[in-house]
């Protein structure tokens, strides 16, 4: 054994084979199987943080931040539906399945959304009576798996969202590992209990955009052309896909960027497929502009929307509304150190540690062992989410986002959040300027635009 030395030691870092890469290689070598996890892309990509508002000063006239009205009402589905959706705020709750989440979590999300006058969305497991009861406005997803899909629930919905793909795994199907296939989940999905369930990645009854048009017509015929029909796509070839969705007859197009979440899929899929939400939004808006459908077809953007500033920037770039999933879960208590039970905060750190993670870093939705009782189907863990407490927190969160949104809108001189515009924005990085096609702050430069 060599003797210890007092000489300073310089350990050269390895950027090609850093800690994360070494861990990945060693895990792959040990298990021979890719990693499955929940949530969305964690890698650094350009985001709405890389934009800033050019609020009013001498050349623009601001509105008073507290007293002057700033409208947040949002209407979706004006193209064909007899009953468009009217929302109080342009922030909706994204599709998350019962199965991935507990019935209690769905209930809490529905209540919070209802109190704020916005919608929530079913997921890859059908509609539960709890979420229908608690959700004032409920969007019913038609997914490739069609688990639990039926005409009675369809007619009870307020809007339909045909899901072509999602940002966390565009081109892939859902996944729910056996530990979350409880008897109730299995029954709703017509699956044996306890199996590792892999949802289809393609719809069973149509292929291609011409068929999609007929499928959307079927859904409209079934609901007597009353309900708005959304088409949700995972952000890859956004321009083409938005145009095809519009050509197929969508009232609303939902574009989910690569930071969009999932309850479980392959890590390689989450981090290495799709394009960032920022780039996706610009492409989606351009697609609508090119086919002269801005305003006729509404655009909802999702994937890593976290704050009122994100919402405001998304609207300024051309979205009609945003949809939030992971952030709503976090408002419920996902990744918090404590959960709330019997009026007390209970420390869950040891439970995070037991599944190999810590508060703030958990993406273990796939295990069903959610330390805070949100992404589980285990009765004991489900009790950790106090529905009233959770609903209040999500409502508070939505309220905060809305206040931040209107604060920025007023400061830009807008009496309606939908009047925010691209001209109100500047980019802080070259990458964001290029992706969002917003000039780099202090310049007129948009990289890649007009031959620059």
């Amino acid at each position: 054994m060599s003797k210890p030395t007092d000489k300073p030691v310089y350990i050269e870092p390895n950027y090609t084979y850093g800690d994360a890469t070494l861990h990945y290689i060693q895990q792959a070598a040990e298990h021979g199987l890719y990693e499955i996890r929940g949530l969305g892309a964690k890698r650094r990509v350009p985001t709405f943080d890389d934009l800033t508002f050019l609020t009013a000063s001498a050349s623009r006239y601001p509105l008073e931040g507290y007293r002057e009205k700033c409208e947040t009402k949002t209407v979706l589905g004006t193209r064909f539906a007899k009953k468009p959706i009217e929302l109080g705020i342009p922030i909706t709750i994204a599709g998350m399945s019962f199965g991935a989440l507990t019935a209690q979590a769905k209930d809490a999300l529905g209540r919070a959304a209802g109190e704020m006058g916005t919608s929530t969305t079913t997921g890859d497991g059908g509609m539960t009576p709890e979420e229908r009861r608690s959700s004032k406005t409920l969007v019913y997803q038609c997914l490739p798996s069609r688990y639990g899909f039926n005409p009675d629930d369809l007619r009870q919905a307020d809007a339909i969202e045909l899901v072509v793909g999602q940002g966390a795994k565009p081109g892939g199907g859902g996944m729910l590992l056996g530990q979350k296939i409880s008897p109730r989940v299995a029954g709703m999905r017509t699956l044996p209990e306890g199996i590792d369930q892999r949802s289809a990645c393609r719809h069973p009854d149509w292929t291609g955009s011409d068929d999609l048009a007929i499928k959307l017509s079927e859904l409209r015929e079934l609901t007597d052309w009353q309900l708005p029909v959304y088409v949700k796509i995972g952000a890859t070839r956004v321009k083409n896909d938005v145009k095809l969705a519009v050509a197929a007859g969508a009232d609303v197009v939902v574009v989910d960027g690569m930071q969009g979440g999932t309850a479980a899929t392959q890590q390689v899929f989450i981090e290495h497929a799709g394009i960032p939400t920022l780039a996706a939004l610009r492409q989606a808006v351009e697609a609508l502009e090119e086919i002269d459908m801005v305003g006729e077809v509404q655009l909802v953007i999702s994937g890593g929307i976290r704050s009122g500033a994100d919402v405001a920037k998304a609207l300024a770039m051309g979205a009609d509304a945003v949809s939030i999933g992971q952030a709503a879960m976090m408002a419920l208590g996902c990744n918090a150190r404590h959960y709330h039970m019997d009026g007390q905060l209970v420390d869950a750190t040891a439970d995070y540690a037991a599944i190999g993670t810590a508060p703030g870093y958990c993406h273990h939705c796939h295990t069903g062992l959610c330390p805070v009782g949100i992404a589980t189907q285990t009765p004991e863990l489900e009790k950790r989410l106090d529905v009233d407490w959770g609903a209040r927190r999500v409502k508070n969160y939505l309220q905060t986002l809305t206040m931040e949104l209107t604060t920025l809108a007023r400061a830009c001189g807008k009496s309606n959040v939908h009047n925010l515009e691209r001209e109100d924005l500047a980019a802080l990085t070259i990458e964001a300027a290029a992706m969002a096609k917003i000039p780099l702050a202090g310049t007129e430069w948009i990289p890649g635009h007009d031959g620059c």
Partner: protein
Amino acid sequence: METMTDTDKAVRFDLDETSVRDLNQFLHHELAESGARHIEVLNPNGRHNIAVGMDAPVSVDIRGHAGYFIGGMNKQAGITVHGNVGWSVGENIMSGSIRVKGNASECAGASGHGGLVVIEGDASSRCGISMKGCDIVVGGSVGHMSAFMAQLGTLVVCGDADPGLGDSLYEAVIYVRGTIRGLGADAQAEPMGEEDYARVAALLDKAGFDHDPKAFRRVASARTLYHWNADHHQEY
């Protein structure tokens, strides 16, 4: 819309004169009040989405060839197409029955939860894909990847089955009388038992086909894909 007679409580729609939307609106909202027990649809001429979302114990006869999604999400009604159909006839059927006197294109009975789909001729590929409890009886042959990811229910094929039959099956069961040109991942041929003979006989009887149940072979899931397993090496 035309009332055929006062006694048989039947109404007739000519789709050269009435839109599919008007037909469906009648079926959804005015049928019960009309007292009609039988609906006849003339000149379908390949139109899509005819008689989707029905929820009444009536019979519907579609006289001619029809397009996609005929009888989609049907409940209770007995729908007969006197011709061929396009894709996804009876998709998501919940109950009742749909009979196609001719051939069906792809994905017949896709994701059906209950009820019966009968194709008297051939059905193209992915017949019974994702089925969740319905029964499908095909008088002729089925195309490739039929019963792909089928979860529950029964597919009876009186003719042949193209390759990829029963790929990624869950608990649905397939019976084939003719040649099986290849099984899909995790599908396996299994011996027939008395219960199988009875199940096939009952469905043949309901579908109106006269075959010996003993001539059928059973295909079901080997259940090797039910749990995540790296040792498959993706060689399914």
